[in-house]
């Protein structure tokens, strides 16, 4: 078995605010093998973006703090714990943007409006590689071409506002891949795009993943997008991973009531008849005053008083498929 590219162990990333401590990421574990895609799915506030930002050490401190856990990242034969690095130090800066790159949701706000697209791509190339400006520009044009931007020689000198939303996101991808990172973190990369443009960008990401042999941590709230992109899926709720497994077993055999609830909430394009949607009752509780036991208890259709008191741990239910739910464990024991 290939050693994992990144291994997150017991990671806790909290925010210390005036209103109290927000356990945004509250003890998560996952691994990602090279060239594989792990999808993290969940609703707003579940901690999926904070996970990404914590890995890249982009959370300002204060208020953020890594309370516990390790982020073991493989660089060649070495393994570094990103959680222990100084976020502003030389080593972290050498990794960020170079070995781990990120694509953000909003291409308009994450590109600098006063620099040309080419300048911004060249910045990351010249920063991380010993390369002349002219060669960097050539590389930038190459990258724009690779992401399917027409007339790259011309586009390289244009400013972000001259590009459409889809083109901007392509430019972002070009920038992220320009240093050939081993891990790409994509945080809702297509959420701001229209469906036909989203389809183009997803297709592009699928192709590039193979071409550049990049592992992807793909964060989204859209189950449809994740089904088409990910090898493995982690479902997050209230700062915890409640279910993780291969994409097929998650979609065909969801075990956690929350995963099931999410799937029943989305209207299906494929069903001919109009079935009433089955929403998850209630709302996500305030993380500052998180429940003692299972975080999903207040909304769970199957919850028993036991769940209210005792937090369930992730437990294997099938090979490679783990679920954090007491009810499921009972079922498997009964069998």
């Amino acid at each position, binding site marked *: 078995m290939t050693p994992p590219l990144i291994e997150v162990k017991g990671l806790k990333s909290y925010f210390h605010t005036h209103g109290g401590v927000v356990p945004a990421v509250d003890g998560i574990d996952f691994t990602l093998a090279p060239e594989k895609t792990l999808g993290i799915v969940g609703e707003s506030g579940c901690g999926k973006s904070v996970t990404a930002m914590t890995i890249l050490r982009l959370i300002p401190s204060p208020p953020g703090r890594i309370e516990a856990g390790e982020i073991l990242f493989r660089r060649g034969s070495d393994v570094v714990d990103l959680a222990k690095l100084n976020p502003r130090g030389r080593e972290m800066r050498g990794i960020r943007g170079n070995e781990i790159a990120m694509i953000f949701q909003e291409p308009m706000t994450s590109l600098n409006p006063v620099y040309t697209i080419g300048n911004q791509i060249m910045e990351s190339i010249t920063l991380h590689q010993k390369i002349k400006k002219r060669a960097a520009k050539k590389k930038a044009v190459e990258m724009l071409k690779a992401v399917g931007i027409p007339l790259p020689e011309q586009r390289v000198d244009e400013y972000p506002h001259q590009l459409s939303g889809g083109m901007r996101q392509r430019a972002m991808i070009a920038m992220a891949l320009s240093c050939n990172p081993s891990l790409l973190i994509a945080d809702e990369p297509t959420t701001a795009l229209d469906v*036909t443009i989203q389809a183009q960008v997803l297709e592009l990401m699928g192709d590039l993943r193979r071409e550049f042999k990049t592992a992807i941590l793909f964060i989204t709230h859209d189950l449809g997008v994740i089904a*088409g992109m990910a090898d493995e899926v982690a479902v997050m709720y209230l700062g915890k991973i409640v279910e993780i497994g291969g994409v097929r077993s998650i979609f065909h055999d969801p075990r956690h009531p929350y995963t099931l609830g999410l799937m029943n909430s989305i209207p299906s394009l494929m069903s001919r008849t109009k079935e009433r949607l089955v929403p998850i009752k209630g709302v996500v509780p305030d993380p500052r005053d998180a429940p003692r036991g299972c975080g999903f208890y207040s909304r769970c259709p199957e919850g028993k008083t036991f769940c209210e008191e005792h937090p369930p741990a992730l437990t294997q239910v099938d090979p490679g498929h783990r679920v954090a739910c007491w009810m499921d464990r009972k079922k498997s024991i009964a069998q």
Partner: protein
Amino acid sequence: MKTDPVLLEVAQLRKFFPIRRGLLKKTVAHVKAVDGVNLFIREGETLGLVGESGCGKTTVGRTILRLIEPTSGQILFRSKKLVRKNETHRIVDIARASSGTLKALRREMQLIFQDPYSSLNPRMTVEALIGEPMLVYRTAAGREKQDRIRYLLEAVGLNPAYMRRYPHEFSGGQRQRIGIARALALEPQLVVADEPVSALDVSIQAQVMNLLDDLQDRFHLTYLFIAHDLSVVKHISTRVAVMYLGKIFELAKTEALFSNPKHPYTEALMSAVPIPDPDFSAKRITLKGDVPSPVNPPSGCTFHPRCNYAQDVCKNRIPEYREIDEDHFVTCHMAQALRLRPIWF
């Protein structure tokens, strides 16, 4: 089967926004946001209006309510309030209505907004927010108004005890419910819902969609449901209109649109929706390029540069919006010749 009467009929609706440049603010061009839209909505049904950003769907919704002045066209509304003696209803052209008529008409048509955060005044309590329309139209006051607010809050699934609270004390889904209660305060016939669930998380989105369904049955509402999410539109609509660059490309019953699409854009739009099934492997029809600018749209059929089936005629002649089957309208030269892939077989 008895067909319900037509509540709203829009004919040749146009809205061009001028682009002004220079010192004298001379009009140099127009954004053709809505360019000749025809549609009708029957009482009690839901017409879904779907399209990508910039296609003009919001402008259509707002022009119908005359929150935006139309450039030309007719918006005929079957009013039950503006009647003379012995009349049960009267057809009024909203596009030409005087401000007095319009004020009276607004009781019968209301709007639900997309963003539940910016559409509620943060300095007003829920009671004041929902009560304001009743105050303006003097439909209820004092005790009666309070009772009505309580009734509306219960109808949208909120605890009436929350009446004295402010919007910031509620979650996004609950705020959207407040907005819906406010829209229903005057017992409207037509509700224009502009992306009412797109700002919400999926689990909350399902709650609000079920609520909209229930309210439609209970109060016999007619919806114009504007959204970009095809699955949501499919779920809620009786009929669906697909818009592109200010024009309706296809309008049909939901069943007909999904099992027998007639416009290449509809086909592409449907195939672009990500399906939550890892084994779903149908080949995507990917469109080339981006949506062109509505300032200077392509010649002929505005879709031709991106269309996989475009012929010479599409570059030169503007296709007409025509009925090719009963209740199935298409704007495409090739509509009859093409065999497009449906989402339902």
